[in-house]
Every structure is written in structure tokens, then in C-alpha cells.
């Protein structure tokens, strides 16, 4: 592995030649904004927020997809970049509902963060808006396509698990949208409610339905915990207020495990006094069920109870 030397905003960085400009900048503490970049996902270059100026090139280049080169001189926050990023955020906002008042994502929303950083605001216009397509079919995931910024993170993360691959892009141009299965509802699609897509969504387009209306991002405290459903331990967040645990959300898959609904429900059961009722999909329909069935423990519990009863009689 060879190293290269480049200059970013006047700071000299010596980094591996395999890094992108964005990664090199972050490694020396320069936070280039990005909506679609995620180190766990393949490079997509969809959001254009991570553009930088590289001396010798007239065009702005996406730093997430540009590899570092020896002697490169990079500027990440020039007037031209600030102006362009503001335009990008403005175009996203022009097609986004003004809902921060009650949006579940407010306080941890990347679009909100960059709108504040670059002084962009909702403005009145009589042009088109993304259509309201609220999908309330799942008790687990709430999908609001009107808030989607088409960063593609949900599609990429879903496609990383070979037997899932439920999400994809559909249509073209302004009509582009993210669909579940063959443009189905979450309920009708083969979605297994693993929450991978919810964990990476930078805006309020995919949110945890079981978190809705319970707690705002800035209220209370969050603790990262390891899932105990299998021995690998994906990361979940337990949100609490005062001394009470309010909700559990999926944070990230880990150790080669993909995140799963069983893990989410088990973690809820472990940490919450009164978790919401569990549901399972039976023939592509969500049905409310009991905890032993939801966690696949019904048979084993029955057997344990039977054995314990028999043992009691023998004594």
C-alpha cells in the first residue's frame, strides 16, 4: 500500500493511495457534507453535496468518488462550493414537505443539518412537488416518499443481503422513486422489516413506526447496545427519558450479520417495560401475534412447560 501527499484546505495530509478525497479529508477532521455517502456502502455519487474544487480542474468533482493523487490541492469550502451546495439543498427543499415541526427525523436529519449550514430555506413556488405517497401498510416501517431525496442508500444497503434485495429505483427523471418489490406496499412486498434501510435513511422518508410520536431526537438520552438475539451483536439504540426506556431503534449491522426483525424485537423486549405489540407476516399480511410466536419460541416454550410440569409430578 503506497501513500500519497496532498493538501486539503491548506493542511497537508499523508494518506493511503486507495482513499477517496472525502475519506482523506475526514481522516484529518475536515467534514465534507454528504447525503449519500456511507462508509459501509458502495460509492454512488448521487447527492453531489460532497463536491470539492481540485486545482488544475475547472469542474467541481464529487470527493466521494475521486481517488487521492500525489500533489493534489483540494479546497472543500470555497465561495463557489458554498453557493453550489446551497443550490443543491435548495432544489431538494423545493421538493420536500415543510414538516420539521413534527417530523420524526427532526434533530437528526442530514437535510435539515445542511439547510442550516448553507442557509437554505423552504420557499413558496408553484412548481411540482414530490407526490404524497405515504405507505402505512407496515406496523414496523413508515415510508413517506414525499420526503425521499433519492440518495439511494436504502437500495444499496438492501442489496447487500443477497436474499433480500427488495428495494430498487423505479421510473426516470423527476418521477424517479424508491419502490419495495414490484412497486408494492411494504406489506405486499417481500420486505422482512430488518430496518437496514431505516438505519441509513438520512431524512424522514423511512422511519421506525414504533418510535413515532414517542420521543424527539433531542429529548432524552440514547445508549448504543448490542443485540443479544444471536451471538454476533448488531447495534441498536435504546432511547430513554428520565429513568424510563421509551424506544429501541436499529443502528447498524455488525460482525457480518445483517440486522433482522428478530433482533429488533428481542432488543425491545430486553430493554422496554411495555414494548408495542409484535406482528408477523403471514401470507404477505401483517398479523398481530404473541411474543413467543414472534420470536419463534412457541414450540420450545411449550416443550419447556411440559417438561417442567412432568418433573413437578415426579417429585
Amino acid at each position, binding site marked *: 500500500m503506497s501513500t500519497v501527499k496532498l493538501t486539503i484546505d491548506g493542511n497537508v495530509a499523508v494518506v493511503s493511495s486507495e482513499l477517496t478525497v472525502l475519506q482523506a479529508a475526514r481522516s484529518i477532521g475536515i467534514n465534507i457534507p454528504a447525503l449519500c455517502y456511507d462508509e459501509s456502502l458502495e460509492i454512488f455519487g448521487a447527492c453531489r453535496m460532497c463536491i470539492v474544487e481540485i486545482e488544475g480542474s475547472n469542474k467541481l468533482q464529487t470527493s466521494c468518488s475521486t481517488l487521492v493523487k500525489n500533489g493534489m490541492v483540494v479546497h472543500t469550502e470555497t465561495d463557489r462550493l458554498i453557493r453550489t451546495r446551497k443550490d443543491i439543498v435548495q432544489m431538494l*427543499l423545493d421538493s420536500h414537505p*415543510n*414538516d*420539521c*415541526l*413534527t417530523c420524526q427525523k*427532526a*434533530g*437528526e436529519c442530514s437535510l*435539515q*443539518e445542511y*439547510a*442550516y449550514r448553507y*442557509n437554505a*430555506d*423552504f420557499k413558496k413556488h408553484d412548481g411540482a412537488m414530490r407526490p404524497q405517497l405515504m405507505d402505512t401498510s407496515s406496523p414496523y416501517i413508515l415510508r413517506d416518499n414525499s420526503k425521499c431525496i433519492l440518495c439511494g442508500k436504502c437500495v444499496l444497503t438492501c442489496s447487500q443481503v443477497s436474499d433480500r434485495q427488495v428495494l430498487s429505483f423505479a421510473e426516470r427523471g423527476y418521477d424517479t422513486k424508491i419502490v419495495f418489490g414490484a412497486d408494492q406496499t411494504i406489506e405486499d412486498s417481500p420486505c422482512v422489516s430488518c430496518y437496514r434501510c431505516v438505519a441509513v435513511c438520512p431524512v424522514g422518508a423511512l422511519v421506525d413506526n414504533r418510535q413515532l*410520536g414517542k420521543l*424527539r*431526537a*433531542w*429529548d432524552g438520552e440514547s445508549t448504543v447496545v448490542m443485540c443479544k438475539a444471536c451471538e454476533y451483536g448488531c447495534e441498536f439504540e435504546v432511547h430513554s427519558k428520565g429513568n424510563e426506556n421509551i424506544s429501541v431503534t436499529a443502528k447498524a449491522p455488525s460482525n457480518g450479520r445483517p440486522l433482522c426483525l428478530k433482533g429488533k424485537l428481542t432488543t425491545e423486549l430486553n430493554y422496554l417495560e411495555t414494548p408495542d405489540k409484535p406482528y408477523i407476516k403471514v401470507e404477505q399480511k401483517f398479523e398481530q401475534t404473541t411474543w413467543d410466536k414472534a420470536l419463534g419460541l412457541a414450540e420450545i416454550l411449550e416443550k419447556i412447560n411440559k417438561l417442567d410440569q412432568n418433573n413437578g409430578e415426579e417429585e
Partner: protein
Amino acid sequence: MHVTINGKSYDVEKNTTILNACRNLGIDIPTLCHDDRLSPSGACRLCLVEVEGWKNLHTSCTALVKENMVISTHSKKVIKGRQEILDLLISNHPLECLGCEKSGDCKLQDYCYEYGVTEGTYRWEMKTPYIDTTNPFYSFDSRKCILCGLCVRVCDELQGTTAIGFENRGFETNVSTPFNDGLINSTCVSCGNCVSVCPVGALEPKSKERFRYWETKEVRTTCSYCGVGCQMDLVVKGNKVVDVKPAFDALNEGLLCVKGKFSYNFLSHPERLKTPMIKKDGVFIESTWDEAYALIVGKMKEVKENYGSEAFAGLTSARCTNEENYLFQKMFRAVLGTNNIDHCARL
């Protein structure tokens, strides 16, 4: 006194309001205009409750408990009433949560979330904007004002300045200064206590830093400006103080003065002295506290030996606490042996 609240029976004290009785029992009733330190005003209507036998919903901040009262704080009718009030408030409120500096610390935003009021349904006329940025420390934006009156009452009842009041009637009601002359021309002393109680983004400090409340943490500290010892919470982003909130559970009971509330920029000022300086060869050089104390003690001994006790005079500061001032005079009288001791507040 016996009452029933939400189906459970409780014994509560006489002459308490329904709101206080409930809060003492841990039952949360939303309010926008209530403040324990101020006279109840019943302006926001959000604290309404249902009382059996009463025809209308009643504001719990103004109604006293009565024997055998049956109260519902979260019945369907009450929740519908509160939703309607929030709807009316948000209908006339600019939807600027995206960039509003108060976002994340705004009671109107919190209650709209809690009661599921996502947008105003009475979207016709908006208030005439009146924006006052004449004060160097804070600004007022009437578009965001919900007319709860907390600022007016704090200024009148606690601060005693009476710089602001309501003007006009009905839809045209506004918080303003006498003759609408602007805050800078009023009797306002810039204590910022109105800013501290504003539940929304109408009164906002003119912060030099841009920050979101959810990026910050609060650190309790004692104000260093005088000996009163007001408690306050520094709002810290990263390693920088970006705002100050008065502590409500301390002796200053949620009040601060202009210095405590707004003068915190010296904390991270590049020219702030962080170590004692000792003059060596005509130049001030950074040193340690041990060195500085050693120098002071050495000089004191030297002066006392050569010139006697009466060669000393001490002047202490109002920025010290009473205890520190006591110790200072004790040191001068008992250790150095002189009564030449005075205090800046007496000059």
C-alpha cells in the same frame, strides 16, 4: 382535601390550583404561559382540564381545587381542545422550524409533536410582522410570538423594569415598548429575563455562534460576575459556550442580569488570561499559580519586615463572594496586622 384525577383518588392541599396539584402528583399538564414565579394569567389555554359538573373546559392554572372534585387531564374532549388551540397557534406561526434558532428547545414545537398537530388549518391572514433588532443583545420577532405574556410579566413582576407591554387589541395585539419606540429607546436594561422565559423563537439572543440545540449539552456553573452567586447552565457546543440559561432550581430562581445572561464571549476569547503573569525585566511572562503565590507571600513578608503593617492597604472586589471578602479582610487584620481594608462597592 380529597379529589379524583383521571380515575384515581388523591389527597391534595387546600388553596392549590388544579395545575399545581397535578404537577405535585407527577401528572403532566402542558402549559405555554404558566410560570410558578408569576401570577397566573390563563392566556395560552393549553392547560385546560375537564371537571365533572362544569360545562366548559377550564384552565387548570387559574382554577382552585375543591372538595371531591373529579378532574380529567387527558380525556378525549381535553385533548381535542388542546389540539384545536395548538392548531390556532400554529396557523398564525411561520413554519420555519428548519432554520429557526429555537428549534429543539421550543415548547410550541414540542406540544405540536405530542398532540399530533402537523400544520395549521386556519391559514388565511398572517400577523403584521414587527421585528425589533435595536437591542444589541437580543431581538424580537412578532411573527413567532404566541402572546403568552411571559416576557411582559417577568419584566413587570420580577425584574420590575416594565419596559414592555401589550399594545392594540385582538388580532393586532403585539408585545411592544411604550409608543412603539424600539427596545433601545425603552427603559429595558437588557437583563434578558424575557428571552429566558420565551417558550418560542420570538425573543432570541443575538448569538455570535450558529448552533442547534440538539448539538449542545448544558453545564451548570456559578456566574462569576458578582458575589450573589447566580446559578446558570452554560449551553456548550463542542468546547465553546454558545448560550446561557438561568437555573430555575437555585437561589436566583431563573433570573440573571445582562452580564450573566449575555456576556460569556470572554470565555473563549483568544486574549483571555489563563495563567498568572509575572513581570520579569519589564515584560509580563506566563507563570504558574504556585510561583505567583510564592512571589506574593515573599513580597508581603519583605514589606512587613522593612516598613511595618501600616504600609499595607487592601481593596477587594464585588466579584468575590462574601466568604472570600471575609477571608480577605481577615488576612489583612489578623495576618498582616492592619485595618487598611476597603471594598469597591463602598466607593
